[in-house]
């Protein structure tokens, strides 16, 4: 009975992992095909598509653009969420509750609707001020903050729930000013949550299509949009190679973060 259970467990786990990983494995595999039109079995293998990823289309440029957007969105998201959650977690007032609701609200609105809304707002702003904001790096970064804040707030509140209020009172009683308590006690205790929130924000922003769709402009396009545009014309393994680069970047981020905080404990 016990053995049967173990076997069943192993089969189910393997099936689950296969379901999750097969598409990824195919993308990685496809990026080495030497034939331009993907079919099986491949004609042979080549690294040419990785070279093409740098030269063809605007992949390299949009990769960097996405990186900047994601860094801006992550940094601003944390800058808003960390102080907000630390301030709001003990508050019992209706106002505090409403603010938390407001900060997490973008999660329940379809992202494409938010994107369209921001686009219309930016156009009106442009008409009113004749300031070219549509398609600018900061406009995209600020728009992505709407997505990173809810993630950060959720993760940080969950993390802060494990920090007992009397720990901060103990610090105060020992002579730590509010600022010293924040930096010596509260932040170190939620550090893993901050790292996880930052990482999530980065991944969510870097991979986003729906919100960016309306807000990109020629010359300032994010990587997912660039891939989408490329796919409209061509289906060759260049896209696979670009995707592998994106996966590698995010995996590297996760691995580095995992060295400092056990992410499995936080997420």
């Amino acid at each position, binding site marked *: 009975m016990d053995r049967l259970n173990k076997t069943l467990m192993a089969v189910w786990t393997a099936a689950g992992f296969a379901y999750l990983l097969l598409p990824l494995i195919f993308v990685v595999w496809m990026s080495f095909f030497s034939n331009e039109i993907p079919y099986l079995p491949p004609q042979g293998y080549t690294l040419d598509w990785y070279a093409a990823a740098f030269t063809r289309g605007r992949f390299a440029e949009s990769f960097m653009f996405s990186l900047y957007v994601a860094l801006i969105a992550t940094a601003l998201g944390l800058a808003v969420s960390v102080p907000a959650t630390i301030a709001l977690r003990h508050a019992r007032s209706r106002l505090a509750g409403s603010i938390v609701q407001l900060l997490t609200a973008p999660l329940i609105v379809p992202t494409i609707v938010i994107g369209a809304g921001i686009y219309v707002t930016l156009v009106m702003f442009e008409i009113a001020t004749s300031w070219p904001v549509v398609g600018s790096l900061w406009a995209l970064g600020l728009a992505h903050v709407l997505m990173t804040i809810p993630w950060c707030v959720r993760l940080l509140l969950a993390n802060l729930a494990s920090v*007992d209020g*009397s720990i901060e009172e*103990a610090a*105060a009683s020992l*002579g*730590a000013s509010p600022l010293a308590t924040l930096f010596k006690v509260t932040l170190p205790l939620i550090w893993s949550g901050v790292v996880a929130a930052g990482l999530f924000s980065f991944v969510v922003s870097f991979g986003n299509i729906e919100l960016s769709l309306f807000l990109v402009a020629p010359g300032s396009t994010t990587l997912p949009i660039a891939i989408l545009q490329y796919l409209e014309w061509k289906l060759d393994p260049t896209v696979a190679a670009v995707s592998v680069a994106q996966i590698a970047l995010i995996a590297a981020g996760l691995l580095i973060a995992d060295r400092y905080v056990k992410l499995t404990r936080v997420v």
Partner: protein
Amino acid sequence: MARLQIQGLSKAYGVFSAVESMDLDVQEGEFIVFLGPSGCGKTTTLRMIAGFIEPTAGVIAIGGRNLTTIPPYRRNLGIVFQNYAIFPHLSVFDNVAFGLRRRKLPSATVEAKAMAALARVKLDHLRERMPKQLSGGQQQRVAIARALAIEPDLLLLDEPLSNLDAKLRHDVRDEIHRLQRDLGITTIMVTHDQEEALSLGDRLVVMNKGKVQQIGTPTEIYETPANLFVADFIGRTNVLHGSGSEGTTFITESGLRLSCRNLTAGCSAAIVRPESIQLVDVVSATSLPATVEQVTYLGPVCEVRLQLQSGETLLATPGTGGAPRRCKGEQVHVEIAPDTAYAVTDS
């Protein structure tokens, strides 16, 4: 180590009054215990002294310095929290050194003082341990060392023993007692455990519904309670409500006449401690016939619930060493030791 003075201290939340106009004068080196049921305001008072709650009215002064509006981090008080509130990300040593480092002391002084505090609670050999690797009792001792290391003017203990098991509770209680006496540090402890309060406190402050009921030594509180609440809350007590009195004789509702230690005029009830009630086999002029209703064996004593013929229910605690075991339904005679009853007012 300093004198603590509290005058007219009150805290109201809207119409609810958590603490009402409290006055207390604590001498240097005194051990004061706030005692009362949950919600009586004892913790609120402690937190006002600590500076975590702003009083609605009143003054708190330590060593002549008015602290009422001073933030907690400038009060120089040592606090031991109910759940210890150890910093989980710092080692035992860093926990104890935390307060010393905030005082910008040279690192040699920090080291010396933190190690001295750890030695006091006999944890100097665990200085590099992380809190997770400590037992509950050890965490408790780290919390005490951390509070003492800063040489506070006042030590505040918030139900420090409630999270420990029975055996450990006794040990830690004795240790707190010893430390407090050795250091001569003015201490305030909050508890709802009367045994803890009686054994540790030089004086007890019994509170109920935000109001101080009585302030006195354990003997005073136990033997001459100020009112029915104090009498009933401290120790097991037989409360006999009454209708009249003559001098020191209290007459209960059923007409039972009790000779009291005090004058009974204006008193509505008399209390008789279970230990002053004896079960006797020989009938005398003062003995009362009764039926045993329930017997609970507690080791050193038995708890015997008796129904007097006059109708009252009494609790007696005869010793178990050599005394005959009573059983349910048995007819016995009860002798209330003369002048042990104490008449009290309602409030």
